[in-house]
């Protein structure tokens, strides 16, 4: 049977890789231009994030944190994408995206307070352009679109980036946001961390589309697919998307194929839905090991550096969790007062019951 000439889109999209698992640059023209100091800073942040994640899981098991979504394996997408942004750019995260917020300026102890269910955790300091992690999977995708509309109306050359996962790309809100961003040509970056599972549901059951990047086509925006375990590919894709956005060329959907080494949350058992073989294959693509190899060959990083950063990170995490634990508990009265700018009379009366 001959192929129909008006078929919409049937080609597989290529996945961009820049840094091979052996630490070699394989796609020179896409390698981000970073100074030696920037490269070391990038490595520092990735190692720090991995250590913080390991400590957070322990703190969670000790009951010193509340809800916590592990991040190991996704350091390239999380740290790398934030690294590619300017301070003024706005981040609208999903529930796993705490590292982007912290590297964008949210104090770590507030991240811990948020996990512990304390309102102050969400009291983002002035000048830090982030929202707290969103629980409703697609809601933040719309917020980034709206914030980008604000930048456009104010004629400011900043971008709003939002993160969701392969599961999030199935939400209605995701499509509405892409469509609006296309219509208004908004400076939005839709960054999908496709880690293969929406809690336990595999990607094969998430969509019949050839890729998530294809979903950009229907919205008339640019879609790209990258190796999400490759921090250079991430930085390139985000820098390019941000530059296009700042130039008025509109939104980009980036699908970054990545993997979470750990469970979805602390109450999830990966052995029920993944194999050891699969996990082993992905660990060979570890974004930190990959960057380390590259930096070691350039003489910019050693094993001792990794040990030193781990120690620094552990000390910092200890200090910040203590700060979180010492923060005065939130109160029902304070909660009531956070409903409205001026607390109405009926709430003042209800407040009296708790004082």
């Amino acid at each position, binding site marked *: 049977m001959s192929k129909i000439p008006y078929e919409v889109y049937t080609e597989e999209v290529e996945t961009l890789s820049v840094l091979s698992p052996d630490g070699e640059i394989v796609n020179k023209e896409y390698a981000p231009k970073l100074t030696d100091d920037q490269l070391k800073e990038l490595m520092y942040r990735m190692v720090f994030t991995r250590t913080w994640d390991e400590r957070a899981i322990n703190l969670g098991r000790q009951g010193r944190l509340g809800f916590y979504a592990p991040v190991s394996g996704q350091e390239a997408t999380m740290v790398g994408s934030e690294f590619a942004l300017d301070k003024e750019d706005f981040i609208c995260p999903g529930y796993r995206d705490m590292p982007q917020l912290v590297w964008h300026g949210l104090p770590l102890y507030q991240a811990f307070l948020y996990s512990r269910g304390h*309102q*102050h*955790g*969400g*009291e*983002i300091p002035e000048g830090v352009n982030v*929202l*707290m992690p969103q629980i*409703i999977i697609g*809601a933040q*995708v*719309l*917020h*980034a*679109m*709206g*914030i*980008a*509309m*604000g*930048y456009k*109306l*104010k004629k400011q050359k900043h971008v*709003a980036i939002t993160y969701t996962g392969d599961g999030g790309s199935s939400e*209605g*809100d995701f499509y*509405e*946001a892409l*469509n*609006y961003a296309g*219509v208004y040509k908004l400076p939005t970056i839709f960054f999908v961390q496709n880690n293969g599972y929406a809690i336990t549901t595999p990607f094969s059951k998430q969509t019949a589309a050839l890729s998530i990047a294809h979903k950009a086509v229907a919205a008339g925006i640019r879609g790209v697919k990258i190796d999400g375990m490759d921090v250079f590919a991430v930085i390139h894709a985000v820098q390019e998307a941000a530059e296009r956005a700042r130039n008025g060329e509109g939104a980009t959907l980036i699908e970054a194929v990545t993997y979470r080494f750990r469970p979805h949350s602390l109450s999830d058992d990966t052995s029920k839905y993944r194999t050891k073989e699969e996990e082993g294959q992905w660990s060979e693509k570890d974004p930190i090991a990959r960057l380390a190899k590259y930096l070691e060959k350039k003489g910019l990083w050693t094993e001792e550096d990794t040990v030193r950063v781990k120690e620094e990170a552990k000390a910092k995490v200890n200090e910040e969790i203590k700060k979180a634990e010492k923060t005065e508990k939130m109160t029902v009265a304070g*909660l009531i007062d*956070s*409903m*409205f*700018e001026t607390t*109405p*009379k*009926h709430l003042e009366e209800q407040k009296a019951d708790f004082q």
Partner: protein
Amino acid sequence: MAQMNLKEAIRDAMRVELERDKNVVIFGEDVGNVGGVFRVTEGLQKEFGEERVFDTPLAESAIGGMALGLGIQGFRPIAEIQFVGFIFEALDQILVQAARLRFRSGGRYNAPIVFRTPFGGGVKAAELHTDSLEGLIAQTPGIKLVIPSNPYDAKGLMISAIRDNDPVFFMEHLNLYHAFRAEVPEGEYTVELGKANVVREGSDVTIITYGMMVHTSVKAAEELEKSGIKAEVIDLRTLVPLDIETIVNSIKKTNRAIVVQEAQKSAGLAAEIIAQINEEAILHLEAPVLRVAGPDTVYPFAQIEDQWLPSPARVIAAVNKVLNF
């Protein structure tokens, strides 16, 4: 002073605020060029440009999400949801995201948004165009709820809503858009959110109501007066916050009350109002407080809506019941 109907008064409020504050923006489905399916925003795009008043793609959740994003960016969005039944598509953004923003950001961000939507029966509209969904909104912490009954209030309440730094859900009764004209001052004035209005004084019974039912209740009160019964009618104007003080003061005088709402009877605002009356004024009551409301069915197709909606006769019957208790 100009004579305006409710629709013109709401438009005038938006015009005044667009003029006064460059951060006010209006958007929604079809609100730009044609001024909305009910022409409430007619002429505003022409006057203020496409960056201030603009059409959106047909997607209600995105309208809500864009409002939130613009609110965070320092704008004061007025987002129109074209018909009330379509708010279900946007409820996460309105009730979960906007209403919780101040709470979940520990006070760092607020959502100075007005969500406008037409609602209300008696106009033979299509399914899900007229339902009284105010109970749904009122049950959610963090959002204010306004339902005006006349052009003067509508303008003053709308200006207050736009200036409010918290999200306000503003419901406009379809049957009142063109029902009558009234004097509306030019320029700025506000009607405070959270203050009810005693529209008709009386000493025998208090009728507590809002929106279109204010007019139904006033008609009933006029009828009752012919038999010597003096009914006081309270127009709540704002349902969140609720002005219980005005209600209680009236009951102290009349000792009897009914609540009239167009919405279905159970678990609605009337039930809430009666609960608060019980808490604040039970010893002043000579009879139970009754509800006049729609029955607990889905809102009907047009054929029987006139029977379904509370009528002056049903209000009169309820008043007689509490008087003869």
